[in-house]
């Protein structure tokens, strides 16, 4: 199947990749075509923006031109008077939301801020903050109407950086905010929303044992998830008060809860229809447009209203993920044991509290068994868009710091960086910084996979003279969550499987495969559909790398239940006890009686009770994931440009259900990590205007920026899943920034501590090093 024979050996399916032979699976581990594939290569698949109705109205959102201002007044009368305009809404149309925390997606969220982020209430907190919205008969008329809305702003000085936000005399963004100081509420206005601490052992004593201590400060910039499909929503508010929302989301039930809370409408009145989704990466959990579309539809005489963001709006007002400042100190003994680590993580939350600093703090040192640890985390508001989840939220920032310091320690101790990791690497039972012990994990196996790889053992020509090799590891805890699904036996021997996890990267296939394996039928017999919120019970978001694990558990259970139900029906028909019915190789038999699976399906429909089974699961035994990566780079010291020569990723999948889509996740995560490391960043001017709100200026990697990405799937089964599945979506993005920084150091001896390592920053560091060397006496 390989395109080019010389490329074939580097596919992840080869030997020596740490995977173990799986004796008995028929479906799992194969690479069938995904059920939604044909629609997606022919343009027929319907995404959120493809929704059309005859009487559809088009909505547009007016956004703040200022990073921070008070809204004195909004006058919408001229906009309303424009022919073709059917409705205008502002924050005044939203019910007043109180401070209340709810878990409506991935982690807790304050409903007051969620509502304020949908439409501003009296204050704007970032360039692009929604202020009003219009529905009109065409998108162009809606846009014209926006320019007729008069907003009187009292412009205030913005707070754009962590330093500004934490300064003694800093302007206060949210007057009501008090620091959550390790669980205690502070008593003065602040921009620091939270401070927490993780502590293990005694760091002071730990550092006293160290022969070598490395301490550095790292910085990363705000970056965006960069999904190619902008946010959109279409809503219809019916005269009878029933609401339907068509949208591309990671979680239809999460959208339903958020809209219900923001608009104070019972969830039972809202149906969310998940359309195909063009990427999410954590950025399509929070609602932005859905409540606005509902409000507009109600105001516009119950006509359907569609809103679609432009790319500039996506960059200005959705996502992004936190920029950060991390101070990292680690001490090791001469014989290569890490004995102490201390860190301070400060993350931008954007306009409202809730950066992923908490998960960053867990990721930071999770790959290592370190007896003495202290980590302080701070969540800080600044006048940037509200941070949302991005693939292994908080992890990339953290690992950039810790894995760079680990690399430096290994070098100074004269140890191979992988040996150093093997020596200190975490195993089952070792405690993480948050005090929780690791369950069964496959970290060391990922390190071994890289150590045994052809890549790591191949000499790199020019190494240390402009070319270098770096490695780094990463952790992500993964998640289980709740899933609901049903399966219906059809008379022709096929099964319709209804589930509610939106399919962002091939999960229809991985779920259908687990069902087929469980029931003992071929994959081709399963017809799988992602259904709306009225069809099954509650289902968590496609996020936290949970879908193949969690909804996979439901699929496994459905398979077992359907088998039992068919046996029971046949036993009735045949007049035997269910225990007498044997099911093997798609044949049911009991004494003389014998039918194939297809015959059984037909027989049951004709002569017995129909078969439909359901499964509701709450997957709590999810297995954490680790990845270790190796990269070769070439640095042009004249320009500061980094070229990636070769990249290999090893990742513990637990069990790869559909290996091609597992490799795809690994490759995609690496590519995003590379973009984060080398190019991507939000650029603001002093007044807080976003200067690079386009895909030309917010530069994500293209095919030309990357080589093939070699994948080594490691399989250390998760005991909490019948097939051993962990999650594969996120951990891959954790190591790339550190791996690249370590490779750059290896190439030219320059230690980069700030992302992105773009030509400008790298050249500056190269020149600084040269200047330093020329002033030093020879």
């Amino acid at each position, binding site marked *: 199947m390989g395109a080019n024979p010389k490329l074939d050996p580097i596919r992840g399916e080869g030997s020596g990749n740490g995977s173990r032979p799986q004796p008995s699976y028929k479906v799992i581990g194969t690479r069938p075509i995904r059920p939604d594939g044909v629609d997606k290569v022919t343009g027929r698949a319907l995404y959120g923006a493809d929704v059309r109705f005859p009487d559809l109205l088009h909505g547009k959102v007016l956004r703040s031109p200022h990073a921070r201002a008070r809204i004195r007044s909004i006058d919408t009368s001229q906009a309303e008077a424009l022919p073709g305009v059917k409705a205008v809404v502002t924050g005044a149309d939203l019910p007043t939301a109180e401070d209340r925390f709810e878990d409506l997606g991935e982690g807790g969220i304050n409903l007051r801020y969620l509502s304020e982020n949908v439409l501003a209430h009296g204050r704007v907190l970032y360039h692009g903050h929604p202020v009003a919205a219009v529905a009109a008969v065409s998108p*162009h008329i809606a846009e014209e109407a926006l320019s007729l809305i008069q907003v009187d702003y009292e412009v205030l000085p913005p707070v754009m950086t962590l330093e500004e936000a934490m300064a003694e005399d800093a302007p206060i963004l949210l007057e009501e905010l008090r620091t959550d100081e390790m669980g205690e509420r502070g008593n003065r206005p602040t921009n620091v929303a939270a401070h927490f601490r993780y502590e293990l052992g005694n760091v002071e004593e730990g550092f006293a044992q160290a022969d070598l201590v490395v301490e550095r400060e790292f910085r990363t910039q705000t970056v965006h998830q960069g999904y190619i499909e902008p946010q959109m929503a279409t809503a219809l508010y019916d005269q009878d008060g029933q609401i339907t929302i068509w949208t591309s989301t990671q979680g239809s039930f999460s959208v339903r809860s958020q809209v219900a809370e923001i608009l104070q409408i019972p969830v039972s009145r809202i149906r969310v229809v998940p359309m195909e989704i063009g990427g999410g990466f954590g950025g399509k959990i929070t609602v932005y447009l859905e409540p606005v579309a509902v409000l507009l539809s109600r105001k516009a005489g119950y006509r359907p209203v569609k809103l679609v963001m432009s790319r500039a709006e996506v960059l200005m007002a959705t996502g992004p993920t936190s920029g950060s400042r991390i101070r990292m100190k680690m001490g090791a003994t001469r014989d290569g044991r890490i004995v102490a680590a201390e860190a301070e993580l400060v993350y931008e939350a954007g306009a409202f509290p809730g950066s992923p600093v908490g998960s960053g703090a867990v990721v930071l040192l999770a790959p290592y068994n370190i007896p003495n640890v202290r980590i302080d985390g701070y969540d800080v508001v600044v006048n940037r868009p509200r941070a949302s989840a991005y693939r292994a939220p908080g992890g990339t920032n953290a690992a950039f710091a810790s894995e760079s310091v680990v690399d430096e320690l290994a070098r100074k101790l004269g140890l191979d960086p992988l040996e150093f990791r093997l020596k200190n690497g975490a195993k089952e039972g070792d405690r993480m910084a948050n005090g929780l012990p690791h369950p069964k994990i496959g970290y060391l196996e990922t390190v071994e996979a890289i150590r045994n790889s052809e890549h790591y053992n191949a000499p790199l020509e020019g190494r240390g003279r402009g070319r270098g090799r770096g490695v780094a590891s990463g952790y992500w805890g993964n998640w289980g969550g709740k899933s609901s699904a049903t399966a219906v036996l059809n008379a022709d021997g096929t099964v319709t499987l209804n589930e509610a996890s939106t399919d962002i990267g091939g999960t229809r296939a991985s779920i259908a495969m687990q069902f087929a394996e469980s029931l003992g039928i071929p994959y081709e017999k399963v017809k799988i559909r992602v259904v709306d919120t009225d069809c099954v019970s509650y289902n968590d978001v496609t996020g936290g790398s949970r879908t193949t694990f969690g909804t996979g558990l439901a699929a496994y259970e459905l398979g077992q239940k359907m088998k039992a139900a068919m046996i029971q029906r046949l036993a009735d028909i045949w007049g035997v006890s269910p225990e007498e019915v044997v099911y093997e190789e798609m044949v049911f038999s009991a004494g003389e009686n014998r039918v194939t699976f297809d015959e059984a399906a037909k027989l049951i429909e004709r002569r017995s009770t129909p078969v439909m089974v359901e499964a509701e699961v709450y997957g709590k035994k999810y297995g954490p994931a680790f990845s270790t990566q190796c990269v070769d780079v070439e640095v042009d010291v004249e320009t500061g440009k980094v070229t990636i020569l070769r990249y290999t990723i090893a990742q513990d999948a637990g069990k790869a259900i559909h290996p091609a889509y597992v490799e795809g996740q690994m490759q995609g995560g690496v590519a995003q990590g590379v973009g984060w490391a080398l190019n991507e960043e939000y650029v603001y001017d002093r007044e807080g205007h976003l200067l690079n709100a386009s895909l030309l200026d917010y530069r994500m990697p293209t095919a030309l920026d990357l080589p093939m990405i070699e994948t080594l799937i490691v399989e250390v089964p998760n005991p909490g899943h019948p097939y051993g599945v962990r999650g594969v979506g996120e951990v891959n993005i954790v190591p790339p920034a550190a791996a690249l920084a370590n490779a750059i150091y290896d190439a030219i001896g320059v230690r980069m501590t700030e992302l992105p390592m773009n030509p400008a920053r790298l050249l500056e560091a190269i020149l600084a090093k040269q200047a330093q060397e020329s002033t030093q006496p020879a």
Partner: protein
Amino acid sequence: MPERKKRMITTTINGEEITFLCEPRQTLLEVLRDELGLTGSKEGCGNGNCGACNVLLDGVLVNACLVLAPEVEGRELVTIEGIAPGGELTLLQQKFLEHAALQCGICTPGFIVAAKALLDENPSPTEHDVRLWLAGNLCRCTGYDKIVRAVLDTAAALQAAQTTPTEVA
């Protein structure tokens, strides 16, 4: 106030002559998607930076978001919907499926149109040729690896089949 008077445009889309009404300010992409219901072409950026809206205009690869609708008068367009005439998947589409060269799939129509244009022009591209040609198409999900392989594999298979030439790409 911008000109709102509609114009009548006649063009050929996927082999069929079509007449539509549009405002001069409407882009080809907007007309394809909103007026003609050809929603296979996607909008990722609206300003020429992502390739999700790629179509062939007189055989030349263009971003439909950068073409004004009135410009297509009398010309010939191929969109993703016209790539597989009669519903049979082309070899290129088949290879995208076999190689799992899509995850969310929003970029896929653009990549398939762009790759078809490449293979029409250069039937035996190198890996570098493919990467260079596809640099106008952004994919955030795949890291491009499997897309590049799918295109190279298509080219190899077409070359191998050359003894019995068929129009498949």
